[in-house]
């Protein structure tokens, strides 16, 4: 067959309740990140770069902006005759809205079972990473694992959503797993990315659903760890789990480091929806330091330690420090912003002033007129 026998499944919604302001108007997968991306672009691009040709995106609510972003999947090379991108609506069976990953997978069991691929990779969209999924599947097969969980070794991020901490033996076999616990120092924390054989996944979720065990982490992953055939795949590249506004802010600022940009974008491209904006225009008197600037920006003021998304304008005399300014927002002349996350389509007038703190950036919601 064509392709590499791996089916991708992305949950677009799993952190909707944790990112509060950012997900008021959208689902986790379509949260803007890094000047021109949405969170889902990283999982999706990793899959495409690994040769995956069929990806299902599970949705739950507030997914209009996600649909707008993904379109036909053209930007990821997933607009195809065979396979390609499939948006899986929340009402997969009758009118039962899924409340958990187990239900969501059950609702979409037909989509999975009808796919010709043998293996399934499951990913949330709240993790920034660049992973060769083929290598995970190769290890999965070599180990004869039932489940392979992708993990990272290091200090666990705070507020890691539905986090799993694994203990592995020398073979990489998981001996135990802790859910939602705190750990001091170095540990092996899961990145919410799993590889399974298609048949194994289907029977595991059906079984769990049948017994009304609906917690994916507890009733599938932890239960299988207890049975002894879950292996870990150690991911060593850059990753960031976005589980709060603070984590979102920090993960955004990480992109100022050249070595992190090289890890994320250097060897494999990250694809996103194309907007055909002209290059950024720097006017006379513009001053920019340590910032990431997207196409379509018009800069006439001062910008430092900030990320400007596509189509942002900064008026003369404006001072933008430590900010994330999302697409198509305009910042008026002589306005001062410090530690502010400005959502898209905002119009901030002249001579305004907003300041947050590093530990608590101020957030300005989408479409405000200030």
């Amino acid at each position, binding site marked *: 067959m064509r392709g590499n026998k791996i089916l991708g499944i992305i949950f677009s919604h799993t952190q909707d309740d944790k990112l509060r302001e950012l997900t008021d108007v959208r689902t986790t997968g379509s949260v803007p990140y*890094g*000047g*021109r991306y949405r969170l889902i672009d990283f999982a999706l691009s990793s899959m495409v770069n690994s040769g995956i040709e069929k990806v299902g995106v599970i949705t739950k609510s507030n997914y209009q902006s996600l649909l707008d972003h993904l379109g036909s999947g*053209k930007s990821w090379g997933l607009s195809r005759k065979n396979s390609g991108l499939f948006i899986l609506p929340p009402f997969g069976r009758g009118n039962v809205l899924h409340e958990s990953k187990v239900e969501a997978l059950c609702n979409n069991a037909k989509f999975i079972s009808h796919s010709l691929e043998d293996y399934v990779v499951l990913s949330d969209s709240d993790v920034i990473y660049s992973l060769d999924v083929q290598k995970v599947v190769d290890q999965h097969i070599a180990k004869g694992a039932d489940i392979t969980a992708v993990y990272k070794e290091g200090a666990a991020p705070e507020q890691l959503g539905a986090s799993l901490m694994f203990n592995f033996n020398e073979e990489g076999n998981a001996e135990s797993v802790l859910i939602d616990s705190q750990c001091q120092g170095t540990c092996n924390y899961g990145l919410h990315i799993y590889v399974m054989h298609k048949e194994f996944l289907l029977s595991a979720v059906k079984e769990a659903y049948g017994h009304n065990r609906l917690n994916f982490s507890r009733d599938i992953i932890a239960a299988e760890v207890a049975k002894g055939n879950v292996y870990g795949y150690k991911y060593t590249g850059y990753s960031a789990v976005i589980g709060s506004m603070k984590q979102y802010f920090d993960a955004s600022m990480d*992109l*100022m480091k*050249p070595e992190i*940009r090289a890890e*994320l*974008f250097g060897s494999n*491209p*990250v*694809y*996103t929806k*194309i907007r*055909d*904006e*002209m*290059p*950024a*225009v*720097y*006017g*006379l*008197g*513009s*001053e*920019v*330091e*340590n*910032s*990431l*600037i*997207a*196409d*379509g920006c*018009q800069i006439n003021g001062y910008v430092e330690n900030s*990320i*400007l998304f596509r189509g942002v304008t900064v008026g003369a005399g404006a001072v933008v420090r430590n900010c994330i300014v999302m697409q198509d927002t305009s910042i008026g002349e002589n306005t001062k912003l410090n530690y502010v996350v400005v959502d898209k389509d905002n119009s901030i007038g002249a001579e305004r002033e907003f300041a947050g703190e590093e530990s608590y950036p101020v957030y300005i919601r989408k479409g405000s007129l200030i």
Partner: protein
Amino acid sequence: MFHKQECVAMLLAGGQGSRLYALTKALAKPAVPYGGKYRIIDFPLSNCVNSGIDTVGVLTQYQPLVLNDYIGNGQPWDLDTINGGVHVLPPYQGQNGADWYKGTANAIYQNISFIERYDPSYVIILSGDHIYKMDYSVMLEYHKEKQADCTIATLEVPLEEANRFGILNCNEDGSIYEFDEKPKVPKSNKASMGIYIFTWEKLRKYLVQDEENADSSNDFGKDVLPSMLNAGERMYAWSFDGYWKDVGTIDSLWEANMDVLDPNVPLDLADKSWRIYSRNPAMPPHYIGNNAKVQNSLVTEGCNVYGELEFAVIFAGVTIAKDAKVNSSIIMPGAVIEEGARVEFAIVGENAVIGKGAVVGCDPQSVENRENWGVTVIGPKVKVGEDAKIAPKAMVEADVEKGAEVQ
């Protein structure tokens, strides 16, 4: 079966662009990078799509590899449609032998069967050499209103420069009575822009006739248009009054790029109602480092800027290292300007490397004899060694050793 199309566009993209020298050594002129993220051909292609013309034949001949690759299936311009779309048309071998495209008219003649598949009422002939935004549908309306057989787009040029253009002499109603190729004493300042709309039936007749004439050079301007006029066909001039620039020379290519930085030049690339589309390299936003200085410049995705930019147009994936200075220059995709290098009034080709401390080009003010000054060009993939010095007006096509001086 093909759907009938009212108007099919034929884009002449076979030009060598020999006056761009090093820049067109390995690629056709329409594929030359322009304006920070575009290639010249993005302009006519985007104009077609924005004007509602979605069947485009692109005639290629000279060094077509980069161009073919760039056009691909036409997806960046929304030209991957079910009917029509973009078609690359190289010369081909037929039953009666094979021929290169002998001239612009011959190129269209050889593709009559392509055009006829769409049974068009009109054909618009475009070239891939110009930077401009034009609504061809307005010109087509004019063509229909005048019941013309041929309509030629014209631009008013300063009378003192009219001797460099093909000038059209017209009656008051816009009908053309005379062609004046590079006239010594121009009677009018209406210059032909090389954009023609023909009623297809008529064009077909004259193309066949022209092909039968062994003395013809098979060129639109020299042969087909004059013979139509002599035969008394209805030919009209349509006036265009926007920005238009032929980027056929190093100086004009440099100027046209600098024009994008000039707010007084009427070429708005940010206009959302007339977007210029291009193939996207999938790179992250550009990064401006600490101590960098960027003024009056255009910077796009994938760039890393640690040095100083002033009046610079920087293409995708370019690196400007610490203490490097770029002034009044164009740095094409993937080029690297290393630490402390200075680039002034220059065009640096794709993936070229300017070594540490090298000096490329200079300000016209700092040259005693202006005759010796010109825009410096570093060819694609050329490596200029550390501390090398490249004189103004130089055209560098081969690597330059460390410390060397090139005149």
